[in-house]
């Protein structure tokens, strides 16, 4: 296996600008920022991980210290190992990424090592996510999104706004799918009618999600700078800008962006700015209840 030896970005001797920032440092800063904005771990691990991330702010020279990243790898790995059944997928991904950073910082070409790992980790994570969706009958027939839009509070505003559900309709459907029924009974309540627009929304989310994830996986696993690989940054940015507006899993989004920015060599020197914008956008998605605001605006109007 080979990689292209990377060159520093154009004009790297000039005054610092986003385009000139070393993408390794930028990727690491975004990772640290993500750890601080979305602290992880239980009461024991959280202060340690948060403390290590904060120490990079106070002592910037620690940013490229492999020992710090080795410790973060061990701590994020411990978090996964202790409760592997409960750890979210991005807890695993964070651990692999911290390991990749550690390996990059001890290798002869940190930039190429980190770029390769960012590309493969995103590619394989998206490939497995796509595979799971294609293997799940209740995903392919739209049931997953029909149920999730009704029972996951993070989707409630969006479900009403985009699905055209009046508050009482949403409530009826939500109560219906939350019923606790172990043993089938003949005395079941009549199912409320799902509006056609709501079904269309679920159908569209189903195929948009599996489509964008599948094509992003292909773009990141394709040989670099051939065919669809050239679109990988755009696809990842589109994925993050659309997915995290609805599914507010900010930590996952920020991690993907840190991995993506690590691959921005001279040919993609404009993309770091877009990655930073996307990072900010996910922060806004997380902290601003935009769907509820729009819902209120339209209901008042």
């Amino acid at each position, binding site marked *: 296996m080979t990689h292209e030896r990377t060159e520093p970005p154009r004009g790297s001797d000039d005054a610092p600008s986003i385009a000139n920032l070393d993408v390794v440092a930028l990727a690491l800063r975004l990772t640290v920022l993500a750890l601080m904005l979305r602290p992880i771990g239980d009461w024991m691990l959280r202060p340690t991980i948060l403390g290590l991330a904060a120490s990079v702010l106070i002592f910037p020279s620690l940013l490229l210290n492999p020992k710090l990243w080795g410790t973060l790898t061990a701590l994020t790995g411990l978090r996964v190992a202790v409760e*592997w059944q409960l750890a979210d997928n991005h807890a695993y991904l964070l651990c692999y990424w911290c390991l990749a950073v550690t390996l990059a910082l001890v290798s002869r070409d940190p930039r190429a090592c980190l770029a390769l790992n960012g590309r*493969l*980790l995103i590619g394989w994570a998206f490939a497995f996510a796509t595979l799971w*969706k294609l293997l799940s009958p209740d995903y392919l027939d739209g049931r*997953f999104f029909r149920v999730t839009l009704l029972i996951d509070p993070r989707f409630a505003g969006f479900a009403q706004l985009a699905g055209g559900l009046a508050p009482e309709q949403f409530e009826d*459907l939500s109560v219906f799918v939350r019923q606790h029924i172990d043993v089938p009974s003949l005395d079941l309540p009549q199912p409320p009618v799902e509006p056609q627009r709501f079904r269309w929304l679920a159908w569209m989310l189903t195929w948009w999600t599996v489509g964008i994830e599948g094509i992003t996986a292909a773009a990141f696993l394709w040989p670099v700078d051939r065919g669809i690989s050239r679109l990988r940054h755009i696809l990842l940015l589109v994925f993050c800008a659309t997915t995290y507006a609805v599914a507010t899993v900010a930590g996952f989004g920020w991690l993907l962006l840190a991995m993506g920015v690590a691959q921005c060599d001279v040919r993609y020197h404009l993309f770091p700015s877009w990655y930073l914008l996307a990072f900010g956008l996910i922060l806004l998605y997380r902290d601003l209840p935009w769907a509820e605001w729009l819902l209120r605006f339209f209901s008042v109007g």
Partner: protein
Amino acid sequence: MTLMRSPWFWYVPSLLLCLVAANQQRLVSITALSPWAGGGFGMFSTAEMRGNRHLHAFALRPDIRRELAIPASLYRQVQQVLAFPSEAALRALAMKLAEIPTPDSGPVAAIEIQVWAVRFARETLQPSGVLLQALEVAIDSRENRAAEG
């Protein structure tokens, strides 16, 4: 630009990802591990998630079968069982549940745990329960005495 050979250790993180994800696929197919859990990137792929699972636990004495209210202190352990209801996890939880006092007299003979998943009908989304795993764990009377002590 120069083409260089990448050292083998650069591939360790992605190799780990693939091994863990492949093992998760295997575990889901042969056990009741939730596709959302275990690092296989199955989140948002099925309604078969931990939040759509629940369990019932019963303390069994001769002629008495009493459902137990699960204390909040066992929350994490219960969540682990819901995500991966293996026999070992059910046994460990049963031992903790055997320590819960009930109004019934006499030692607990066994603890029965049932793990249920909610499935949704394709047309109507009518939820229904499916028994995923059930286990009856005999409780040693010496352990009962120790628990009471």
